[in-house]
């Protein structure tokens, strides 16, 4: 007996020794990762982790993209895409989730940006961090454009033709840019370049993200308004009583990763079950441009470029240089505005109502992004007269400015007390209400546009989504659950965690029997569910053990 005990002790000592050696030589225990205060990891603290969510989606994109790269052939883009869909084991799942992962990343980048815009995170000392972030937005949309165009379906050719057309209008450099960007006119040259640019942009995203993240760690997180008192510069210095990065933050990041990837995998798998989903949200590529089915597809760009696409249809942009001008006014100018905002809004106040111009422009940006995208989705290729453009776009801007300035004035005079807990959250709720109001304003103009029923439905869906998101998200920012201490593990937690784990393994077992080619999307739903369930199990565990 004693010899067995000795052996176990010896093995244990060896294991500890090997682990200590590894940690010492790899320096993994000395990574410059910041500790964070508990309130950032608690329920409602997800607003502090929007960057982490993007990083998770980006990592997912790189992993699936690398596998797709092993099968994609730019010399025959459409057939090799079809090969991935129909012949590669789980190829359908990889391609569909790669697409939806990109969608998730783009949406999250917007959320991350606007959140930090409204809370004034671009102010001292985070100006450079913000500028790099805006460049990352441009690169993300660029990588999305090139990646989306790789499938060789009708939308990809439309997107390329329009991109080429806009590029060719650029004075002096136009033709040169066309040959740099789109090659010599052959399919192979075009798709080889697009594949290259797609990967180059992802590489640039990785590099810039590395620096962005370094700056985020060096500048520390922007603390809650209770701590900053709405005054820049504000930081979150590490203190002794903060929980160590490992395991607190690591477990939290694993939870976020499981949930994010779970949804990225689950949603397209679920959408893919339905036949004939509209092309803008279909997880699969469309038909070949030369096929008969292509004639039924509206000449759409990917949905994240719909806002520029609609602007090209505006009456004032229908002349020869119009498409370029539309891209400059609705694409380049907003980008430049966001790049230089740290130097335009230089006061030290972080309160949205203390910065009425900035806040108004931010709201108008969101409103225009949504209106133009929805408009583009429901009236593809329809020319809109300039007067009607003004009727749709000017009222929201005027309403927003008037409302924000009025509220700001009242607030400064002390006449307005918004909420008891946190002005920021009430303010966000106010924004969401305004967004809905503005969208409904647009909706009242919709009968000028035609397709009134579909348009109104789409607008209601989108405004409802925006309202729900803003309202729920912001409400939870303030209403943090109390730091509840458990002396005993509640029975419910046992049952919930055991049940979730059991279902995870049942789903794993069922998935093993499915065919990797014909039932790839079913496996995707199972995988997404398992990831989400394990994320929830981890969340419950963290709540019980760490009280977060």
């Amino acid at each position, binding site marked *: 007996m004693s010899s067995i005990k000795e052996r176990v002790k010896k093995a244990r000592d060896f294991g500890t020794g090997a682990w200590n050696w590894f940690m010492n030589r790899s320096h993994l225990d000395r990574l410059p990762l910041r500790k964070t205060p508990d309130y950032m990891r608690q329920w409602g603290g997800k607003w502090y982790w929007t960057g982490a969510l993007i990083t998770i989606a980006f990592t997912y994109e790189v992993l699936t993209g690398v*596998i797709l790269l092993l099968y994609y052939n730019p010399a025959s883009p459409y057939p090799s895409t079809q090969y991935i869909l129909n012949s590669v084991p789980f190829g359908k799942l990889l391609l569909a989730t790669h697409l939806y992962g990109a969608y998730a990343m783009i949406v999250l980048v917007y959320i991350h940006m606007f959140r930090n815009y409204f809370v004034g995170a671009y102010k001292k000392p985070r100006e450079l961090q913000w500028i790099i972030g805006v460049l990352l937005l441009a690169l993300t949309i660029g990588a999305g454009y090139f990646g989306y165009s790789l499938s060789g379906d009708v939308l990809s050719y439309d997107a390329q033709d329009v991109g080429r057309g806009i590029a060719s209008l650029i004075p002096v450099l136009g033709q040169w840019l066309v040959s740099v960007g789109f090659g010599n006119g052959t399919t192979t040259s075009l798709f080889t370049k697009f594949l290259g640019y797609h990967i180059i942009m992802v590489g640039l995203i990785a590099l810039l993200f590395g620096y962005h993240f370094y700056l985020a760690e060096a500048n520390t997180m922007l603390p809650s308004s209770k701590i900053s008192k709405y005054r820049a510069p504000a930081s979150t210095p590490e203190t002794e009583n903060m929980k160590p990065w490992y395991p607190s933050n690591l477990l939290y990041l694993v939870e976020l990763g499981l949930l994010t990837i779970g949804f990225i995998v689950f949603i397209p798998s679920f959408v893919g079950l339905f036949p004939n989903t509209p092309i803008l949200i279909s997880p699969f590529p469309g038909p070949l441009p030369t096929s008969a089915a292509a004639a039924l597809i509206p000449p759409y760009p990917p949905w994240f470029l719909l806002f520029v696409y609609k602007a090209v249809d505006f009456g004032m942009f229908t002349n020869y240089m119009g498409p370029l001008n539309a891209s400059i006014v609705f694409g380049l100018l907003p980008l430049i505005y966001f790049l230089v905002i740290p130097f335009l809004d230089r006061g030290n106040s972080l309160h949205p109502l203390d910065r009425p111009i900035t806040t108004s422009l931010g709201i108008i940006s969101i409103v225009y992004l949504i209106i133009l995208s929805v408009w583009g989705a429901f009236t593809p290729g329809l020319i809109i007269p300039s007067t009607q453009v003004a009727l749709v776009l000017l009222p929201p801007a005027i309403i927003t400015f008037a409302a924000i300035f009025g509220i700001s004035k009242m607030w400064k005079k002390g006449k307005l007390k918004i909420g008891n807990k946190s002005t920021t959250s009430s303010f966000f709720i106010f924004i969401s209400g305004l967004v809905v109001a503005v969208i409904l304003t647009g909706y009242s103009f919709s009968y000028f546009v035609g397709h009134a029923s579909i348009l109104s439905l789409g607008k209601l869906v989108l405004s409802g989504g925006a309202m729900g998101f803003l309202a729920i998200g912001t409400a939870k920012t303030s209403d943090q659950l109390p730091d509840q201490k458990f002396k005993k*593990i509640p029975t419910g937690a046992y049952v919930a965690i055991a049940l979730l784990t059991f279902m*995870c*393994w049942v789903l794993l077992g069922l998935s093993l029997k499915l065919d990797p080619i014909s039932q790839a999307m079913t496996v995707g739903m199972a*995988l997404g569910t398992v990831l989400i*369930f394990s994320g929830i199990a981890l969340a419950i*565990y963290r709540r*019980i*053990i*760490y009280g977060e």
Partner: protein
Amino acid sequence: MNEGIDETKRNFLKLMVTASVVAGAGLSLGVVVKSLSPPQAGINSFPTLKLVDSSGNPVLTSSLPTNDPSAMQFSYPLQSTPNFLLSIGDSNGTPVNIGATQVSIPATGATYQSYSGVGKNGSVVAYSAICQHLGCIFPELRFYPAGVESITLGGKTYTGVLHCLCHGSTYDPEKGCSVLTGPTTHPLPMIKLVWDSSTDELYVSNMVGPTIYGRASDLTGETPISGTTTEVTNLGNPFTA
């Protein structure tokens, strides 16, 4: 950290959560591993293909020169799987009637029956043109017609053989390409020729012997041949090049 919680109960929860994360990670890993290995291209059975020249005309056995060191090659059963088409003669250039014979595979000790030669003289045969040792092809693997070309190995001179210059493997085409000298431990696979005596045309319809070098099976790992013909190409005489 909540301090009051019993360590054992806590470990139980820890185990459960870890198990659910492991299930997710395992399933993800399974998807990735499977997706990395695409199903092999291929066909289900040996096709029957007519041998034709570059203009699509049938190859006639009467037009095949006997004891020609020039490599006449065609693909079978899949694309770019080369095979020799040979007309074997003796040292005087007279066609040899090749009969079916027992061929053994030195590596395993297994044996199989080779096909007999076809054509008016029974001298036309076809073999895989990928060396069974390490996969060398023409011009390293070449035909040394009897009395025309010869190779001396270890003091012994061989003629009327297939020999690979990469590492020195030698095969006897009169005896089903059985192994004459190593380092190979497998004979060359033989292709079944079907001769239409009324038209003098040639068809290929099957294979016998070891699996084609480097393949999991003769019928997978390559793009199938489309149509009902396979083209015979003259790659030239390696001894005069």
